[in-house]
């Protein structure tokens, strides 16, 4: 399919992947109609500050709004979820009826994973979740966070800053997987210095509800230790929003839509359907599957997939995004390259002005790409990435 044959593109979703897809369509010269179907009642906003500035009330709801396009042929429909897909008939079902398309971008994102659906579990994914958590925290003295990934630890940091007594429980040491033991250890130390209790329960963790009620009052570890909190937040990862694709015939893996390195769901049968962002998992040439639920990835993947929708195989394939960041406990951390570096870094430099740290790990047997981590350091991620691109070229040459 070429751009000249596309007149109407439907973008299912309403977050940054969907917005970037729409924007890329225009930047690549598509001049037909774009219909964006968002299930949320708000126009697209960034979720990144929900665990930080918004939760701490430093930022307002309005501060989170993403720029709305000036484009008159972009129809953004709110409270309008895609509810089913027939890729053969090229139809997307919505509560307002069926919509036919020439091109489809699946960007329905993910939702928070819940550990105990029978309970009234608090999670943090959408702005409404943030409002509710904020309200509960304002009347609480203690917070228990179940899950020590970026989201859980960022909430712990914000809550500690608000003066709450905070405990985080997880089955593995918080942050190790993405930051590696050295940097994660430094963050954990900063968390503990601010009074946060970190509990690792290798035996597993289950939520505990009120007797006869639905309120979550704490968590029990597999070896019988109980941890309570006035407020309990589950921060245990995400689940792709793919239930609407159940009868579409598209291939799913752990709930995510499987796409090729060009973002296509099925290049032979449905070359006009791509999937991007948190809802998608990429099957690489060697059969490995990679899903990276980060902001950077959503942006890069949306660009790649839309270019393949318009230009086919000529568009360059996707490379997994290799940049992410977190801000917690006074530490501003940015990582470029392979996640979870282990062992001692090959380079460790302190910036004399800011006092920030730059750490570099050269590639190792289990880590094909180098890793650079900055902690409160002014080095631009873009500069780090360019440095690494040069290294890769040298290795290839």
């Amino acid at each position, binding site marked *: 399919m070429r751009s000249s044959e596309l007149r109407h593109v439907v973008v299912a979703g309403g977050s940054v992947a969907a917005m970037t897809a729409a924007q890329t369509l225009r930047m690549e010269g598509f001049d037909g109609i774009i219909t964006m179907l968002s299930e949320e009642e708000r126009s697209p906003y960034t979720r990144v500050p929900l665990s930080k500035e918004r939760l701490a009330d430093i930022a307002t709801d309005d501060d989170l709004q993403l720029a709305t396009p000036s484009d008159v042929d972009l129809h953004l429909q709110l409270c309008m979820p895609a509810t089913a897909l027939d890729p053969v008939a090229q139809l997307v079902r919505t509560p307002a009826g069926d919509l036919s398309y020439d091109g489809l971008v699946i960007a329905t994102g993910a939702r928070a994973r819940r550990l105990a659906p029978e309970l009234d579990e608090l999670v943090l994914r959408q702005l409404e979740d943030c409002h509710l958590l904020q309200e509960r925290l304002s009347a609480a003295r203690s917070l228990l966070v179940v899950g020590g990934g970026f989201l859980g630890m960022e909430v712990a940091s914000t809550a500690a800053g608000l003066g709450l007594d905070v405990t985080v429980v997880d089955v593995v040491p918080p942050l190790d997987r993405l930051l590696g033991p050295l940097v994660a250890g430094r963050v954990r130390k900063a968390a503990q210095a601010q009074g946060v209790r970190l509990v690792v329960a290798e035996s597993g963790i289950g939520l505990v509800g009120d007797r006869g009620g639905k309120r979550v009052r704490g968590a029990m570890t597999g070896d019988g230790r109980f941890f309570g909190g006035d407020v309990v937040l589950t921060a245990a990862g995400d689940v792709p929003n793919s239930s609407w694709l159940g009868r579409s015939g598209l291939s799913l893996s752990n709930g995510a839509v499987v796409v090729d390195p060009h973002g296509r769901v099925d290049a032979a049968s449905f070359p006009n359907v791509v999937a991007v962002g948190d809802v998608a998992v990429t099957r690489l040439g060697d059969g490995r599957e990679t899903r990276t639920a980060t*902001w950077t990835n959503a942006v890069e993947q949306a660009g790649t997939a839309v270019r393949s929708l318009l230009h086919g195989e000529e568009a360059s394939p996707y490379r997994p995004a290799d940049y992410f*960041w977190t801000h917690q406990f006074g530490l501003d951390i940015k990582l470029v390259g392979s996640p979870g570096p282990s062992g001692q870094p090959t380079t460790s430099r302190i910036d004399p002005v800011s006092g920030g740290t730059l750490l570099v790990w050269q590639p190792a047997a289990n880590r094909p790409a180098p890793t650079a981590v900055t902690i409160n350091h002014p080095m631009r*991620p873009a500069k780090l990435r360019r440095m690494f691109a040069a290294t890769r070229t040298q290795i290839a040459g």
Partner: protein
Amino acid sequence: MKVVADRERCEGHGLCADAAPEIYDLDEDAIVVLRYSEEIPAELERKAEGGARVCPVAALRAL
């Protein structure tokens, strides 16, 4: 079209400068700097919007 940057909120991720280097640059502290303080040339408006939209902390506005 004009672009406005909230340098207080900028965290230096640099995605704007990746998406639209004609419009956005980063200073020595990796904080965003605008290349146009006045009207943006018409042919760059879409890029300016695109660069604004990828900011994860919504520190950029195209007006």
